[in-house]
């Protein structure tokens, strides 16, 4: 194992920005008040939360009163699905390419009499409006389609889908965890009722997320108790993490464009090389996040390639991190109609702005070698 592996899994998690850490540190030492306390320690914590709320709101194109802090993107997704499904036993429609944090809670709602509908994606990884209209033929209370896919990076036309959802009287949620910080995200312009964002995907700390919520929506809390977050999310606020989330959001404003330029250059150079090696790139015919490349080589197992790259000191992902325990091919690629054999070869490289062209060059040299080596191994076994 190399002492300094190069991290190319920035859709999995990101390095905490040192400037964010600096803002957080006081809240891990002398600024320790509980934000519900009325004394000065508590009020200082409350003010810090208020500021973070404004920063998150601004990054999301929302009003601060629309920000409900949670502990993670997963919690926000669960909150949206369980909280907005409604008491009537209608359909919850989720796209075929959603993260398990959406699909699993949706399926869990079947215990309460809800039906789960799946909105199809096309071969490019796009959830198109026709598929949504088909899904909406059944009475539907809630729709969830992610803004940008974690594996392919494909960006959906959420504003258009939201129009359709509204015309049918359904609520719409979008998981914007991968989109935030990489492309402009505007809650108002998207026209959705709720949107999930997460701190640790934007160089903020783990342990903080938010649900951006249209206040007119009648949502049921997931966590009951002390009544924090307007009674919608009880539990002592994780001040340090939330402050870090706010600081990370504040950095987006000035740095997103630059980050997108850096990562897009790295990604495009990588993909040119992959293509020349005979690799297939998934979703590249659609509009994608600038930093993400999801690819496969025929007859090379994704897991094998990932392990080989890992031994050479490069951290990349096969499928999504959260489902990497399983050997099933990516459900996203299955939804896109990719042949299972090719899909089992899928590897995801996701760049961050701290990655360099030197790192990329080193990576290209290694992946060229490894692909050729593994191909020879495969050829021998045949």
């Amino acid at each position: 194992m190399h002492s300094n592996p190069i991290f190319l899994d920035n859709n999995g998690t990101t390095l905490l920005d040192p400037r964010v850490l600096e803002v957080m540190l006081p809240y891990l030492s002398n600024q320790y008040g509980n934000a519900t306390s009325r004394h000065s320690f508590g009020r200082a914590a409350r003010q810090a939360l208020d500021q973070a709320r404004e920063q998150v709101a601004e990054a999301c194109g929302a009003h601060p009163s629309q920000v409900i802090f949670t502990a993670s993107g997963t919690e926000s997704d669960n909150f949206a699905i369980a909280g907005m499904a409604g008491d009537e036993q209608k359909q919850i429609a989720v796209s075929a390419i959603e993260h398990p944090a959406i699909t699993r809670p949706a399926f869990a709602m079947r215990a309460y009499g809800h039906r789960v509908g799946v909105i199809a994606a096309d071969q490019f990884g796009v959830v198109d409006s026709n598929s949504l209209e088909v899904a909406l033929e059944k009475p539907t209370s809630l729709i969830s389609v992610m803004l940008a896919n974690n594996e392919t990076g494909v960006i959906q036309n959420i504003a258009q889908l939201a129009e359709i959802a509204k015309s049918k009287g359904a609520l719409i949620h979008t998981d914007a965890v991968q989109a935030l910080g990489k492309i402009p995200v505007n809650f108002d312009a998207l026209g959705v009722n709720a949107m999930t964002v997460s701190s640790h995907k934007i160089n903020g700390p783990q342990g903080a997320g938010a649900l951006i919520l249209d206040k007119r929506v009648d949502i049921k809390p997931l966590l009951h108790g002390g009544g924090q977050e307007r009674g919608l999310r009880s539990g002592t606020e994780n001040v340090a993490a939330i402050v870090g989330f706010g600081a990370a959001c504040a950095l987006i404003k000035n740095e997103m464009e630059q980050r997108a330029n850096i990562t897009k250059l790295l990604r495009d150079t990588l993909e040119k090389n992959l293509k020349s090696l005979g690799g297939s790139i998934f979703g590249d015919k659609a509009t994608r996040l600038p930093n993400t490349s999801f690819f496969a080589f025929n007859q090379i197992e994704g897991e094998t390639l990932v392990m080989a790259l890992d031994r050479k000191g490069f951290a990349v992902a096969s499928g999504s991190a959260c489902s990497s325990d399983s050997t099933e091919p990516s459900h996203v690629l299955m939804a896109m109609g990719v042949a299972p054999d090719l899909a089992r070869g899928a590897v995801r490289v996701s760049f961050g702005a701290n990655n360099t062209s030197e790192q990329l060059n080193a990576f290209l040299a290694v992946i060229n070698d490894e692909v050729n080596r593994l191909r020879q191994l495969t050829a021998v076994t045949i």
Partner: protein
Amino acid sequence: MTVHTPIYLDYSATTPVDPRVAEKMIPYITEHFGNPASRSHPFGWTAEQAVEEARDEVAKLVNADPREIVWTSGATESNNLAIKGAANFYSGTKGKHIITVQTEHKAVIDAVRELERQGFTATYLAPEPNGLIDLEKFKAAIQPDTVLASVMFVNNEIGVIQDITAIGNICRENNIIFHVDAAQATGKVDIDLEKLPVDLMSFSAHKTYGPKGIGALYVRRKPRIRIEAQMHGGGHERGMRSGTLATHQIVGMGEAFRIARLEMKAENLQVRRLRDRLLAGLEEIDEVYVNGDMDHRVPHNLNISFNFVEGESLIMAVKDIAVSSGSACTSASLEPSYVLRALGRSDELAHSSIRFSIGRFTTEEDVDYTIALMKSKIGKLRELSPLWEMHLDGIDLSKVEWAAH
């Protein structure tokens, strides 16, 4: 040593992160980043190893098996997961009645209320005036369809310690799942889950010198207790609780619980000495009432009502010390503490109560300053109080007919 105001005496609301805990956490925010569920690269492995070491430490403090510890975002989530998770899982076989206590934390009360909305029934037991549960009354509350009981180990407002062994034994005899909110207990009372007849127990890091945003739920393996997950997704925590784990926070909780295990005995002696000093000083003031039993109580807590002083003006008067008062400020009115009300305290005494909670970094100077401040401020407010004047004149205020207002 000089006293720095405001003096923090609100350790039951939250504790500072111990500097040793912060030191252990920082590398996991900066260097060892990685999603512990990412199995494919060493960033993930380092994180996973740290998470498992922390799980061991949490388990050790309460003498449990690490496999019985499930991470959560805090005690509120632990309580919600335990209560809703167990009630939903066992309602089909055991029934839909729940027993809890009026003085529980809101996270327990409101989780039970949510279950009531879903068709469960609940008994909210009234404690005795000293805050403790009468075991006979607990037994009497049991119904044939009682599925779950939830009783907190240590009360957050008055610090009283319930007889968890006795209550747990009653639950065992009656085949009732027993959940205990121990958020205020860790590092303060000995917890031995090998001996305690408890099925589910909630923990929080930030009440025991760890970071906010992390907690745990103990889920007994022998006999095995099942819960229905409340948060679904990547299937973390053996499917009981999904969501990316904040590695640095978990590491912080592990270190905080390790320190608690090693130091709690000595620390409790020191805290008790300070608390007793505070009590002795405050008892020199006339007309003060201690809320809650003094024998079955953690040494960290002192909850006192100052008669003939109004609650909100009391809070204004003591702004040099950071304490909690017996009234929760809602938007429109001052609500007296529901815990003190459940003990049968009058609204006036509930309003004029202050919870002093002492901890690791409290000094004797802090306590002495607090005593002097309270003596002076209570004196001043009573000078202003017509009720105090009437009391000194020997008028029984309960017999006065107050003009309706």
